[in-house]
């Protein structure tokens, strides 16, 4: 591959990243919009109905104006699938993604959210040491998925290193996480859960669970979701029948002596978008 071809590939990755971020920030996925509609239609509390009406009006206004749904445009968490023997090196792919994030910061526009953890100095372009997180796995095609993650819901997420004897207490840990969060994460939330793996893998699984479609749940997820909604926290913590739109669980095998459980909370603006590079 010559330098010109390499340049074209880098540009394609940067373009796809930028377009993907734009789509995720402005347009909610159809399954999420449908879940919010169901919540609105089933709600009887007048304050809760008002909150859900505002959310629906906001979704329409963002689409009409082609502007971000929320001023917390988040941290762009990136997932890539890369074919075996792809001609661009991993470092080049990462740099091309960062270029796409910088361009999206100006064009969408995004709020510059990336700061140094101690000095709190803002980098101005949503790029910094370790940011954005880019998760690369092998796949048949080069794809980019963006999950813009806001801080309000991220800040109330939890990880528990439970004991192997506490398998039956996992639902309680998850429901308690939502209880402690109250209205702070902008409910109705989507609850991403990672069970098993290691300390770090459980957290990764919990975030990946937020990429799953929320139009279906298994019995385990449904039981937990029902328990959460029975708490009555409601939209924005002002009371009501919908506190969670869905609970999604991902699992991994873990050490026989441990049981990590991670709960990643996502606000109602469950933003995600995927693009095939060059498509």
């Amino acid at each position: 591959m010559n330098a010109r071809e390499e340049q074209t590939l880098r540009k394609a990755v940067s373009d796809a990243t930028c377009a993907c971020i734009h789509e995720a920030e402005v347009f909610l996925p159809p399954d999420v919009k449908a879940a919010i509609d169901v919540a609105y239609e089933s709600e009887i509390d007048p304050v809760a109905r008002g909150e859900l009406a505002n959310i629906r009006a906001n979704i329409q206004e963002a689409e009409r104006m082609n502007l971000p749904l929320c001023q917390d445009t988040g941290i762009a968490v990136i997932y890539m699938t890369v074919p075996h023997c792809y001609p661009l090196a991993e470092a080049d792919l990462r740099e091309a993604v960062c270029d796409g994030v910088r361009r999206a910061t100006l064009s969408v526009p995004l709020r510059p959210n990336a700061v140094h953890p101690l000095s709190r100095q803002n980098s101005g372009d949503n790029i910094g040491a370790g940011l954005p997180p880019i998760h690369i796995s092998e796949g048949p095609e080069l794809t980019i998925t963006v999950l813009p993650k806001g801080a309000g819901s991220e800040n109330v997420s939890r990880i528990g290193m439970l004991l192997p004897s506490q398998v039956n207490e996992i639902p309680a840990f998850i429901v308690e996480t939502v209880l402690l969060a109250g209205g702070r994460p902008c409910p109705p939330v989507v609850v991403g859960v990672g069970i098993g793996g290691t300390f770090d893998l459980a957290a990764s699984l919990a975030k990946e669970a937020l990429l799953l479609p929320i139009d279906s749940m298994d019995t385990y997820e449904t039981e937990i979701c029902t328990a959460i909604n029975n708490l009555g926290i409601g939209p924005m913590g002002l009371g009501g029948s919908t506190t969670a739109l869905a609970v999604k669980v991902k699992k991994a095998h873990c050490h026989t002596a441990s049981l990590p459980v991670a709960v990643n909370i996502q606000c109602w603006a469950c933003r995600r978008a995927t693009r095939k590079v060059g498509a």
Partner: protein
Amino acid sequence: MKINTPLGDEILTLRAGDSVLLSGTIYTARDEAHLKMMEDGIPFDPEGAAIYHCGPVIQDDRIIAAGPTTSARMNRLTGFLLDAGIRCLIGKGGMSEDVAASLKGRGVYLAFTGGCAALAASHMKLAGVFYPDLGMAEAIWVIEVCDLPLVVGIDADGGDVFSRVNTRARERYDEWIHNRV
């Protein structure tokens, strides 16, 4: 009910759970702006003023997106504002018992729907800025609002929707746990 800034004693009659439409001037302030105002003083007339917990997206002097941020982060940073005459805090998610106590007899906490940044922006015009050096999210933006739809989260009489909802949620959680075992 419609209310306008600067706010006066009319807000003392509002009750937790009421819906209001707010018009007038509001000032955005997050963590960094609170810390700076504590040190340097409040750069605008605080009498009857409204603080908005928000870090907007601004482009070319235009408000692009301006929904509320989580108010609880400002729990420990709010007392001096109320002492200076500020009558209204706007945000999402509610505030602590201490803040609710400080609001008694003088001010209210109004909740705006979290994440509704595009809807908020459609009710707003940018009027100025203090502390631009704090950056886009943390600066104090002066915003003119027209009929911003809000819910009274905490009233001036100790009524607090969030604490009522949280207490009930805790009871229901305990009951669920009890019945599971």
